[in-house]
């Protein structure tokens, strides 16, 4: 067990992710901006944040409130339940069988830049499911992936547009993200 991110570091990462998303989507020059970011998404854009249940939901709320403050207007935030889109629904999952919960996206995704938020990017399968689920809701102008922890071990051709902490953790090991809203404290632990 090793604490890789403290509450302070998580807050710093979220602030940093907010700045990068802000500069990319709002055309503000930033030192960290990737060279092609502006040409991809120019100008003031219609942006929204969508979190994947359950930790992504909490992170999405924090990101959207930071973005809202920076932009001076409300950035809509929604929650996506990806259970019905999982690719392992028909394989035995023992007691870790996922429960279907609600998708709550109270805005039109058509034409929006959606910042998709999850706690850990690992195999890429959740992100794949989330993209399919989002596209069944409409046609976003773009989907960008933001994660707190970017862990090695991708099984699909997917990568994060905004990654916080990069972790090279051996397969089978657990990366546990705890957040105040759901777990009482902010912390990331590697087994």
């Amino acid at each position, binding site marked *: 067990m090793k604490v890789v991110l403290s509450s302070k570091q998580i807050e710093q990462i979220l602030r940093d992710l907010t700045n990068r998303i802000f500069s990319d989507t709002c055309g503000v020059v930033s030192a960290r901006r990737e060279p092609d970011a502006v040409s991809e998404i120019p100008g003031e854009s219609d942006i929204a944040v969508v979190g994947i249940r359950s930790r992504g939901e909490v992170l999405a709320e924090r990101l959207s409130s930071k973005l809202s403050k920076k932009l001076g207007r409300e950035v809509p935030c929604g929650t996506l339940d990806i259970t019905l889109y999982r690719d392992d629904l028909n394989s035995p999952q023992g007691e870790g*069988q996922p429960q279907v919960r609600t998708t709550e996206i109270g805005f039109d995704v058509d034409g929006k830049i959606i910042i998709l938020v999850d706690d850990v990017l690992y195999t890429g399968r959740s992100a794949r499911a989330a993209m399919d689920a989002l596209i*069944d809701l409409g046609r976003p102008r773009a989907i960008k992936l933001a994660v707190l922890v970017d862990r090695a071990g991708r099984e699909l051709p997917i990568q994060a547009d905004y990654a916080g902490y990069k972790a090279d953790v051996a397969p089978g090991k657990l990366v546990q993200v705890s957040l105040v809203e759901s777990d009482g404290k902010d912390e990331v632990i590697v087994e």
Partner: protein
Amino acid sequence: MAIKRKSNQLSWQRKHLLGLRELSAEEITYILDTAEGFEEISTRSVKKAPALRGKIVVNLFFEDSTRTRNSFTLAASRLSADVIEFTEKTSSVSKGETLLDTAKNLEAMGIDIVVIRHSAAGAPKFLSRNINACVVNAGDGYCEHPTQGLLDVYTIRKLKGSLEGLRIAIVGDIAHSRVARSDMWAMTKLGAEVIFVGPPTLMPSQVEKLPVKVSYSLDEVIEKVDVINMLRIQFERLGGNPFPSVREYSHYFGLTVERMKKAKPDILVMHPGPINRGLEMESEVADGRNSVILQQVTNGLAVRMAVLFLVNQAAAQET
């Protein structure tokens, strides 16, 4: 116990839904919670999710149905399953094929879920013991109609927040009603008090053994209840003369505008459909502001999606 709890993770373990009598309150709540996640599918631009992609659902109906059958068909389609519609009148059953042979033959085609309605109580249970596919009861005799019971409690929970402490009247032909039975099991397990209301001739025998109160007067009950579920008079099942005339029945047990004046202002008026307008309920009441009859139908879709999803999930855990 078909739900196991492990570190806050619940999981459903029944591959058949045969009735609500055998379910725990926790299991019923689990289905209702799951159904909430399915409601949203019907509101979006692509009204489909891939959860049952590649699965085959058979609607095996030996009795007439409009709502239930269409609701199951739509539920299965929204989850991307393929649906086979089986109707007794146009099938080999009319040539004498037995229920089991019919089901075995359908199973040989590789079906995954059988949704069955049959006039014989216990037919779904019989089937579940003899085939490998999941079995969902869509009504068996006078025994149970579990998805109707579930959509009724789902509708009440949604509008009242909870069933705990509510008083619910189920009015009419209780004796011939599988809806009344499934409702009774679900409602009482979730903490409501159920009152069966109707003429003595339409009460089931040994009603005193059921977890309900009985009243023979709608006028005595109407002002006390939070929910009233008006059953259909099932002329096709009524033998003998259970009441002197339709007019007399309506006079004593019909939900009229006049009677509604005595009810609580926020009473929920329910009906499983199809309505005999003017008999068990006046049109003004059926279409009135307390009526949730159409919401029941809408919610039925989400509940049936949840049921199909859960039984299939449980079957996947077996392999």
